[in-house]
Structure formats: C-alpha cells, structure tokens
C-alpha cells in the first residue's frame, strides 16, 4: 500500500517535471523563433544609392545658428563572395565654423542588404582637434565584437587598444540602429507603444528606447509631410537630456525618411532639418 503510494507520488512528480520541461522547451523555442524573427527582420525601406542631406543648427535663446551639414548615404559594396550595403553618415561644419571648431566626422557600417545585420563599423572623428577612430568587427556566431580604438596623443603620436566585447543577440552599432528604426513597422504600432534597442557605443552596450508619440503634419524642405513623431531616450546615459525632449519625425510613408529632429544636450538645444532627399526606394 505504502509502496503504491510512493510509486504514485513519484509518477505524478515525473509527469509534472516532464510537463514543466515540455512547457519550458516550448517557451524557449518560441523565444528563439521570435528573437530570430526580429533580428532577421527583412529590409523593406533602405536601398543602395539613397542620399539624405541635413542642416544641423544650435539653438541659443530661440536664435538658430547653422553649424554643420549632416549626410546619410547608402551604397553597394562588393566583396568576392557577397554584396553588402554600406550605410554612411558624415558631419561637416560649415566653412565659417572651420577656423573656430572644425568637425569632420565619419560613421559607417557595412550591413546585410536583406536584414540590415551589421558586420563592420567604422567611426573616424575629428572634432576641434580631437581625433578618434573606432572599428567594430561583428561575429554574430560567437556574439562577440572585435573592437579597435585608435587615438592621437597631444604630441601627435598614436596609440591603439584592441578588445573583444561580448554582445547580446540583437546588439547593433549606432548607424545600423538609425537605419533599423526606419525599417520598423510603425504603421502597425499604436500611439504610446515603445521599443528598445541595444546599441554598442564606445565598447559599451546601451539601451535606446523609442516611443511612438503621435502623427503630425510638418512643413519641410521636401514638402509638407505627414510624420510619425517619435521620442528617443538612452537608458543610464546623460548624453541626451530631458524627458521627451529628444524627438524624431519620420515621414509616414514607405520610405520613413527622418525629416526633422530636435535634441537636448548638456550645452543647449539642437535641431536637424532635412535639406534634400534623393535615390529613395519608394
């Protein structure tokens, strides 16, 4: 009798454990499928040959001072085995600023044209005499990034730092994240929805949150456009200040061009306005 009872309890516990295991397996496999679905989301927005030009201004007491020209450009790059998409962002100060604070920034990323998965990222900046070069080589199989940092000392000599950084499954670089935001299905989202992305910057992973605030029609240099108004925030970082003060307007069409951006940093407010857009996919 006691033996039967013990066997019964053992059987029940085995069944419970097996059920739990099946449920866990199911959950884990669903998560893997879902995460792979998100990470390999198809690119429907970005095509090679696109060029967006912006004017960056610094806002001081309501007076806008044009500082620099920012461009976002895409092109095709061929290696012997594959064709990649090169996403390039540059920031160049206007000539009247060059003698005061010269900026020549270059950010580029080599990604898969189908899924926008990054493989190589370069950042070469020159900001008022300060030089820095960063390179990330992504290895998505081992989930690591081989990072190279090159800086110039005051005496003109260079030093290098090589590092291997562990990353999450959906970690991207800054440039790819910008383009990835454009590739989101915002038309399916409802007002108030938010999504987070992990961005690798300066060898550290930061979480960037995007919140869909509303739909607005604004006047731009490329015409009157209906736009998605998004707010951007970086968790655990003090680069962007304020709450809902960093805003991005993306056109509410298939191209989702960023036409206007407002940001609040430590030294004041800035604006990014579109000047021209060519080579769009749709």
């Amino acid at each position, binding site marked *: 009798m006691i033996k039967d009872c013990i066997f019964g309890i053992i059987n029940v516990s085995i069944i419970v454990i097996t059920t739990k295991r099946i449920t866990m397996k199911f959950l884990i496999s669903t998560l893997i499928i879902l995460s792979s679905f998100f990470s390999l989301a198809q690119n429907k927005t970005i095509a090679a040959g696109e060029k967006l030009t912006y004017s960056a201004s610094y806002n001081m007491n309501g007076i806008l001072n044009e500082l620099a020209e920012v461009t976002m450009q895409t092109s095709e790059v061929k290696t012997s085995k594959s064709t990649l998409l090169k996403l390039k962002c540059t920031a160049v100060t206007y000539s009247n600023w060059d003698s005061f604070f010269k900026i020549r920034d*270059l950010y580029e990323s080599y990604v898969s044209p189908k899924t926008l998965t990054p493989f190589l990222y370069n950042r070469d900046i020159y900001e008022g005499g300060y030089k820095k070069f960063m390179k990330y080589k992504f290895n998505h199989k081992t989930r690591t990034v081989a990072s190279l940092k090159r800086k110039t000392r005051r005496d003109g000599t260079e030093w290098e730092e090589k590092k291997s950084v562990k990353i999450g499954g959906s970690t991207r670089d800054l440039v790819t994240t910008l383009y990835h935001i454009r590739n989101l299905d915002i038309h399916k989202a409802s007002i108030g929805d938010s999504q987070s992305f992990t961005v690798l910057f300066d060898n550290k992973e930061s979480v960037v949150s995007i919140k869909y605030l509303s739909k607005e029609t604004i006047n731009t240099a490329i015409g009157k456009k209906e736009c998605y108004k998004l707010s951007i925030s970086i968790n655990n970082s003090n680069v962007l200040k304020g709450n809902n003060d960093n805003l991005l307007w993306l056109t509410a069409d298939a191209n989702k061009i960023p036409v206007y951006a407002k940001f609040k940093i430590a030294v004041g407010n800035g604006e990014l306005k579109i000047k021209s857009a060519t080579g769009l996919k749709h």
Partner: protein
Amino acid sequence: MKKLLIILGYIAAILALVLAVTPLFKIAYIPSILALIFGIPALVTSKGQQTGKRAIQLVFLMTIIALALTTYKAVFTESEVGNTEQLEQKEDQLEEESIDELEGLDLDEIDNE
C-alpha cells in the same frame, strides 16, 4: 546710476561687437539690444550735462556697427560646407580596408541561418 548704465552699456556693446565677427554672429542681436536699453536712459539722464556724453556716443557707435555687421552677415552669408577633400580620401581608404576585412564573409550563409 548714470555711471552704472554707461558701464553696462559698454560691456554689452563690446560683447555685441565681438560676437558680430564670430560665426555666432546671430547672437550679437541680444547684447546689441541690451546696449541700447542701457544707453538710452544714460543719454536721457545726461541731457544738458557734458560729462559722460562721449562715452555714451561710443556705446551707440559700437552698437550700430555690431548691428550693421550682424544684419549684413545674416542676409548675405550662405552656409557652405568647408573643405572635405581629406574626409573623402579617408572614406576611400576606409572602404578599401573594410572590403579587405570583409573578404571572407559569406552573406548567404549568415542570412539563411
């Protein structure tokens, strides 16, 4: 009181003049207006007196020069990008290096995983 107004007017006018020659010239409007705000009451209070008149005239002169320069620059200065030759060279060099780095990459294999 008059002395204080003249000193403040001087500071604002000099600031306006300095800002007017920098790329931040649009901001020069703020100290220019301030210089006028301090200068006008100083001028009114010094009517009939000879002391300090020269100083007030100088404040007005500097403010007018600053305002004229700022307005001229605001109307005629076009924002043009500076020399980007070096940046373009760097871009080409980086692209070549990147292609070499990405040579072993098989995209079809990664995309189909």
